[in-house]
């Protein structure tokens, strides 16, 4: 996939087509951000998900050095501001793309698959049921601790530990599913798969991410409760 098929506006300095990068290919001046550029394009990457973390780190370091405002102390204010803009986007982009989950969420949001407040897709009912029950056990454990009932706390703690291990295993499963979906997505891009197939793959990733979200919350809740326990 190319960075952008839309012709970028002429370079503000030399008037030549700047080539869509951070700097004009003609005169080398820093360019304003284009609204359509996403985080992947910012790093010169295709929208692939199974990305090489070391490669991303290298690109990040190279760019942060090139875009750094320190390089523009003697430049016009206009250019200095461009460097500030690009540096701040660089940091956002890096933070989002470095983590596989936020990377996938970003891709889906960019393609309108995942919207705040509009996720109508529900997790499987059995999972919700399990999530609910475990939350109830957590609550019981807290209450038992509060009332100083040591025997009850210990028994509940044991049960929670087992449940926690179970959910930890589920989280690992979901992460493996997500990684597999990433590879499928990348393969689909490689063979320029059509809209339908991409939409289907994105819907699947969305479903996996939803499930993961419940499980991760629970693992965090259980870990917090068991670690924070003085007598567990």
């Amino acid at each position, binding site marked *: 996939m190319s960075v952008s098929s839309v012709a970028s506006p002429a370079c503000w300095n030399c008037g030549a087509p700047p080539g869509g990068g951070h700097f004009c290919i003609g005169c080398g001046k820093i360019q304003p951000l284009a609204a359509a550029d996403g985080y992947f394009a910012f790093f010169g990457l295709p929208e692939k998900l199974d990305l090489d973390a070391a490669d991303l780190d290298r690109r990040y370091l190279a760019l942060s050095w090139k875009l750094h405002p320190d390089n523009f102390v003697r430049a016009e204010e206009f250019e200095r501001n461009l460097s500030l803009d690009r540096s701040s986007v660089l940091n956002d982009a890096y933070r989002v793309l470095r983590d596989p989950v936020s990377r996938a969420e970003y891709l889906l949001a960019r393609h309108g698959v995942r919207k705040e407040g509009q996720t109508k897709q*529900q997790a499987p*009912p059995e999972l919700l049921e399990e*999530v*609910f029950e475990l939350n109830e056990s957590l609550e019981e454990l807290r209450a038992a601790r509060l009332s100083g009932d040591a025997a009850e706390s210990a028994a509940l703690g044991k049960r929670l530990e087992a449940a926690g291990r179970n959910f930890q295993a589920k989280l690992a499963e979901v992460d493996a599913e997500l990684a597999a979906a990433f590879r499928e997505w990348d393969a689909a891009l490689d063979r320029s798969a059509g809209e339908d197939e991409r939409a289907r793959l994105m819907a699947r990733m969305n479903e996996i991410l*939803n499930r993961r*979200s419940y499980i991760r919350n629970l693992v965090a809740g259980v870990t917090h409760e068991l670690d924070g326990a003085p007598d567990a």
Partner: protein
Amino acid sequence: MAYSDKVIDHYNNPRNVGSMPKDDPKVGTGMVGAPECGDVMRLQIRVNPETQVIEDAKFKTFGCGSAIASSSLATEWVKGRTVEDALHIKNTDIVRELSLPPVKIHCSVLAEDAIKAAIGDWKRKQGADEAQASAATASAKE
């Protein structure tokens, strides 16, 4: 983020927390979750079969303050309404009543979904019952 007074009130004094027997034919149970945050909510209604009026409602929510307030408010609102009427409760009504900020809209969506799910569950039970009952009443009536 500052919660509105109404949210804080529902959060500190949640109305109708609890549960009802799931297998009771008059009870509908809605179990929903918000994938954005992983929070879960259970809302239950007890319906009078003659009048179709929701006579009681209970909820239990593991989630943020807005989700607890939204579901607490939802149980208050559904009580005394007919099932059909309760279906008209919109998350936007909840947002308005509780002055929820945009980032908390999904919490109110959860409450609307929970009402719908509870009613759906109750209707399913009625359907199943009616099928049995109509066979029985058909012969019993006149």
